[in-house]
């Protein structure tokens, strides 16, 4: 990016402030919903450009965004504490920024839409998510060469595992422990089902049921961040993914120590 110190001075300070807060809001929603770092930076830069700030700088990590509109303006910082996966919101913000860049909507409308997206609840109710987790678990058991008899047990324990991670995460704010407990519960339920004669292969049932907890999105994001040159983000996301995998492994392992 070439430097041109005069470019942002054509805008009034108030305009720059509005544009900055708009960009930060978009970036915050995207980052909280699980977008890659490069996408967040790209979206913020594009939005700023369409709002009359051709030179903006952003530094995005999974835990915070630093944004500066032009070289004269002061920089703003937003801290991101909680991250979930909500690709619906990423798509929605993406579409707002696209329309803003096209000129289809103005800054005020964009702000209203973004506030709406920020406030919106998850696109799917929790029971749909649990049902999806159950179906995914059952499917994975079959994909990993499981027996057809293991379909129902993995459906049950996968659903219980996902419900547990949702419930425990509300109870304990530490994600690591929520995942550990959930994995332990998955193992326990699968073991009970196998011992009562409903399931056949314990291993396949556990592997299938644990899949909804596996940090697939985190791993993908970590790699994409690393490759895009966002080394700090890539490494920290990689660490998050590793912690999750470790929690799941430990949860199951503890079960085998006990029984």
């Amino acid at each position, binding site marked *: 990016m070439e430097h041109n110190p005069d470019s942002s001075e054509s805008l009034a300070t108030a305009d720059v402030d509005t544009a900055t807060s708009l960009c930060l809001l978009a970036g915050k929603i995207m980052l909280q919903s699980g977008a*890659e770092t490069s996408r967040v930076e790209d979206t913020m830069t594009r939005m700023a450009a369409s709002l009359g700030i051709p030179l903006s700088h952003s530094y995005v990590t999974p835990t915070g965004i630093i944004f500066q509109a032009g070289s004269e303006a002061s920089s703003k910082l937003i801290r991101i504490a909680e991250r979930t996966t909500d690709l619906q919101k990423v798509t929605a913000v993406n579409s707002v920024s*696209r329309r803003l860049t096209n000129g289809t909507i103005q800054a005020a409308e964009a702000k209203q839409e973004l506030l709406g997206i920020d406030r919106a609840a998850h696109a799917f109710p929790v029971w749909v998510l649990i049902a999806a987790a159950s179906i995914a678990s059952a499917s994975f058991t079959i994909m990993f060469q499981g027996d057809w008899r293991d379909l129902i047990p993995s459906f049950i324990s996968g659903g219980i595992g996902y419900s547990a991670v949702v419930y425990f995460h509300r109870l304990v704010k530490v994600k690591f422990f929520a995942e550990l407990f959930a994995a332990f519960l998955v193992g326990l339920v699968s073991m009970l089902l196998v011992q009562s004669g409903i399931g056949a292969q314990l291993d396949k049932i556990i592997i299938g049921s644990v899949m909804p907890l596996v940090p697939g999105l985190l791993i993908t994001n970590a790699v994409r961040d690393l490759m895009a040159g966002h080394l700090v983000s890539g490494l920290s996301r990689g660490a998050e993914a590793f912690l999750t995998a470790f929690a799941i492994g430990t949860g199951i392992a503890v079960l085998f120590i006990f029984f």
Partner: protein
Amino acid sequence: MAAQLVVSFIASAAFTILFNAPKRSLLQCGLTGMLSWFIYLMVQPRSGPVLASLCASAVVGMLSLFFARFYKMPLIIFSVAGIIPLVPGGLAYDSMRQFVENDYTAAVQLAAEAFLISGAIAMGLILSEVLNQVLRRGK
């Protein structure tokens, strides 16, 4: 084989619900996951899981690039759906279990394989991205 394809479609589509992806992307995500699992199943018996994961994720990367352009949605929606069947969750679990049962030799072996597969998935994704950049520059 047919059962495997149906099941992988369902699994990938269910996963996109878990990630709260937009409803209109469910079908495409299911297709991406199905294709990735199909390629994996085709290549795996001949050249092993690592190369199979590499091929599958490279194809997933290209397909999700296409879908992202065509439907004007973030690429990540499709690539995640395609990657999910390849993630070596089973191997990671197996190696953890061997660790618990004090069979460290087997555990390290399995862990190394899981690590290699994750690397292969990553390489495949990068490969498709690089290809895309080369094609874009070439124009």
